[in-house]
């Protein structure tokens, strides 16, 4: 059996404050009270502030999450923060709208001539311009104002009017309504951006990718098969992976971890040599907790789509190994308490290979940035998970009760991901983990994710999965 390794990982943010109004929560609140739109608009932050935001720099690999400095982060600019980082970039909205239009093969997005031109010019200068052929933006030029008068939704509004629009794909199919396609195209475009960065940063031939597994949150489909489509192959096509086929893995926020386990299994079984796993950004979650930010006189920080790409391949003697003999899974019988979930995801797989909780250098879990969640009363999610893990270490007599704080600081990390569900569920740490296990001092890192299956009302269960990445000893 071939030993599967994590060959590469990349991450990208698309700063898209203009798309916040299309987020699920803001859209509902604006429908109830149209004056909310102006309050949101007045509290957006600019691109420079988004680039200088320490958690965003951690997302693209410029700084480790433990080195972000003290909170609050939102009211300061991180020294040296740049648009491009070791693992990807933070893309401004004008370029991202162009990327969405390039992702749209059905000419549903229309851009004003000015927006199309400025976007194309910027994308021409982009290091990934070869992947996306910005010249094709000419065919997206139209009259968004007229399109909106005919029923399209506004995609980009400036002081002078509507500069971007998106029409429905079908007038009767609710799965192809404009707002659904906006979510799917934003996901496709941001996912393709992350995958293109992965290929470029690691000098990989797109044609060397055999399979692309999508693990995004969006449901692509039509009225006869809601959610039946896939973004994996659509993203593969956009990133030039001409030899790849693809499919999607769905599991609410937990999807990336089982997707990576499946990818590693395909490589281990010899079915494929190189499998990419890609999660694009979640448009519905933009501005999800905007009310908390407004209430606390903060800028609306959920203004960016997050995307991650990873490449799993055969052993190269250097890249971190994915231990398929120690996969944690939340079984039907496992139980739903936090302790039962942690037992299933952490203790059980470690027991299988004779390791202890303290044998793992870093745990990547739900890494949502608390600066986004706390103002709305949702608390510090990563810290709650790390304290539960530390409590289990105490119970197993691996550390003393007084050492809980130290354990959390050493084996955990502050949350740094936007509230983009699947991306925040360990996936965002993949590039850091790879670096720590190759050039850094880590020997083992566990990635674990949880998915709230009960939200879909088919079961009261949640789900979860974990895997261990280990330094390659050659």
């Amino acid at each position, binding site marked *: 059996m071939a030993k599967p390794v994590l060959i590469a990982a990349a991450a990208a943010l698309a700063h898209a404050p203009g798309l916040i109004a299309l987020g699920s929560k803001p859209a509902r609140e604006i429908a109830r009270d149209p004056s909310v739109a102006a309050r949101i608009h007045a509290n957006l932050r600019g691109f420079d502030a988004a680039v200088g935001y320490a958690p965003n720099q951690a997302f693209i690999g410029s700084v480790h999450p433990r080195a972000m400095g003290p909170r609050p982060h939102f009211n300061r600019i991180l020294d040296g923060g740049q648009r491009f980082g070791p693992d990807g970039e933070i893309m401004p909205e004008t370029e991202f709208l162009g990327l969405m239009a390039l992702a749209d093969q059905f000419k549903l997005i229309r851009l004003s001539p000015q927006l199309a031109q400025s976007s194309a010019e910027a994308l021409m200068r982009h290091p990934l311009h070869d992947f996306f052929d910005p010249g094709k933006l000419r065919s997206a030029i139209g009259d968004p104002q007229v399109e909106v008068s005919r029923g399209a939704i506004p995609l980009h509004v400036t002081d002078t009017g509507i500069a971007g629009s998106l029409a429905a794909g079908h007038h009767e199919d609710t799965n192809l309504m404009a707002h659904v396609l906006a979510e799917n195209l934003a996901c496709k475009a941001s996912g393709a951006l992350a995958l293109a960065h992965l290929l470029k940063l690691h000098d990989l031939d797109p044609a060397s990718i055999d399979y692309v597994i999508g693990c995004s949150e969006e449901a692509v489909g039509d009225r006869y098969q809601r959610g039946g489509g896939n973004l994996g192959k659509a993203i593969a096509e956009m990133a030039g992976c001409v030899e790849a086929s693809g499919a999607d893995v769905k599991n609410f*926020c937990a999807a990336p971890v089982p997707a990576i386990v499946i990818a590693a299994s395909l490589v281990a079984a010899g079915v494929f040599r190189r499998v990419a796993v890609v999660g694009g950004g979640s448009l519905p979650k933009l501005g999800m907790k905007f009310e908390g930010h407004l209430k606390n006189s903060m800028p609306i920080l959920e203004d960016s789509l997050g995307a991650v790409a990873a490449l799993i391949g055969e052993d190269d003697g250097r890249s971190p190994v994915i231990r398929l003999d120690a996969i944690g899974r939340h079984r039907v019988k496992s139980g*739903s308490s*936090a302790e039962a979930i942690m037992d299933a995801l952490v203790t059980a797989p470690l027991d299988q290979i004779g390791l202890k909780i303290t044998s793992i250098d870093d745990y990547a879990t739900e890494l949502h940035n608390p600066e986004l969640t706390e103002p709305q009363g949702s*608390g510090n999610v990563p810290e*709650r998970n790390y304290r539960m893990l530390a409590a289990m270490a105490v119970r197993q007599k691996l550390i003393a009760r007084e050492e809980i704080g130290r354990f959390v600081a050493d084996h955990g990390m502050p949350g740094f991901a936007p509230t983009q569900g699947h991306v925040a569920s360990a996936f965002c740490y993949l590039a850091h983990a790879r670096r720590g296990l190759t050039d850094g001092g880590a020997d083992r890192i566990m990635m674990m994710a*949880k998915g*709230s299956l009960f939200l879909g009302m088919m079961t009261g269960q949640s789900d979860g999965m974990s895997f261990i990445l280990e330094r390659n000893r050659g």
Partner: protein
Amino acid sequence: MFAGKKIIVIGERDGVASPAIAACLAATGCEVVLMATECFV
């Protein structure tokens, strides 16, 4: 304190899930009429 009462249980995925809260309440003689677990992220 809970005996004879009708109780609505709201749990949280990253904290204490509702079935765990309901299990703790089982011995108190209350009736859990609604149980939901929420995800806040």
